[in-house]
């Protein structure tokens, strides 16, 4: 991930998130579609999200506290079942939020 915030497009961010999800779940990257549910479709368990956040920190080069992820989910997906509602797009939205926060 380049250091210059302005150079990162949403497409690049989404591609990066797909790559990270594939790494975490040890599956081919082309199995990770934008609308894939991380738990229901791709087989993630709770600790895979800890792994995911740790790897996001590495590629974003900044701290991503788990509390912020939890708050993001509560606001973004109120009352939804996380098993089906957390998709690649949702994770990419979170990554974008964290990226912008650091740039601000």
């Amino acid at each position, binding site marked *: 991930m380049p250091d210059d915030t302005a150079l990162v497009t949403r497409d690049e961010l989404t591609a990066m998130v797909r790559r990270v999800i594939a790494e975490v779940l*040890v*599956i081919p990257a082309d199995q990770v579609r934008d609308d894939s549910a991380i738990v229901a479709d791709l087989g993630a368990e709770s*600790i895979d999200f800890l*792994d995911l956040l*740790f*790897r996001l*920190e590495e590629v974003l080069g900044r*701290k991503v506290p788990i509390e912020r992820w939890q708050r993001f989910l509560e606001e973004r997906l109120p009352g939804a079942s996380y098993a089906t509602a957390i998709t690649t797009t949702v994770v990419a939205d979170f990554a974008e939020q964290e990226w912008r926060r650091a740039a601000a």
Partner: protein
Amino acid sequence: MPERVAITGVSAITPVATTAADFAAALRAGRSGVRPISAFPAAGFETRIAAEVDGAFDPSSFAQPRKAAKLMSRATLFAVAAAAMARQDAGLGSGDVDPERLAVSLGAGGMGPVDLDMLQGQHAAILAAAREQEGGYEHTDLAAFARAYRALTNPIQGLRGLPNSAAANVAIQQNARGPNNTIATACTSGTQAIGEGMRLIRSGAADVVFAGGTDAMVNPVGILGFGLLGTLSRRNDEPERASRPFDRDRDGFVVGEGAAVVVLERESFARARGARVLAEAAGYGVTCDAYRITDERPDASGATAAIRRCLEDAGADPGDVQYINAHGTGTKMNDQLETRAIRAALGAHAQAVAVSSTKSMIGHLVAAAGAVECVACVIALAEQFLPPTINYDTPDPECDLDYVPNRARPRRIDAALSNSFGFGGQNACLMIRRW
């Protein structure tokens, strides 16, 4: 009268072979698996040799889904692979046993970081903390350590060091929902895990038990830890000659790694499903010296009692035994005291029994040692030969039994004993008998 315990499948992942069939061939050939350490750069270490599992063998290929391997240390991966291979050997399909009647009993180690990744993570955090702190490196600033550890450590990493990681992951992979035991009694772990597995069958708690042990201590902390205690051979220039149990010029053991699992079944259960039975797990004796952490009782009374209890448990006399797979580490103390214990427990018959240490070939697999050595006994019974003690050149007057020097020998074997003794004063003995 409780039912007998049948052994219906075995596996062995060892420094000389990664299948039980190849292990049998290696034992017969008297092949050494000791080499210069390849797992990490060992220049600067006093001991630079070990017995490692062939790098071409990929135990993670047995873990499903593939991401499950992320949570497994090398030792756990070995256990998962060994359980899968033993189950296949036993011909036990997924519908052949009620998952709640399927148990796991595994010997496991656990001294510090379980693999190089974990060690490097901790090391990096300590270095980062030291760089950050003021006033020199004399103390560790825990707040700085916490910040560095938080930034550098993947949260899931610690789960690889869970003491019951091996048994739990075998249960997940094999859908074994019955009793799940982890035995952590150092070098006797594998033997005790099989003995306690026999008890699960005899007590009626399970129909089938995956019993065995696993360990992978060929890492810097493992080698340094045993080295500092003065237990390791430093015959770095002649790796294949370094492990020489019962020889006068022995200078300690060689660290090995691997895993073995035996499938134990209740007799009537094995018969009902038409299982092939390899041997009977006939006896188990276990005691503790209650004396010193590393020294054995000088009269070897604890070890002697374990062997006697094992014979009693099997309803056998000393004269029924033709072969003993010795603990035989190659330390001065173990080999002398084990000889004394065998003489005390078997009396005059000790002179007629063949005693060998397969550690001469595969090194000391620590928590896996007893499990692999139990499989060596099953092989010796099945193929009717005595595995040798290699590197036996010069007799030690204190070790005066038939150690099957250097070459395997054909022999009629009806019953074999397998000894294990461990730090903490642990003593355990198994009897494996013809079915």
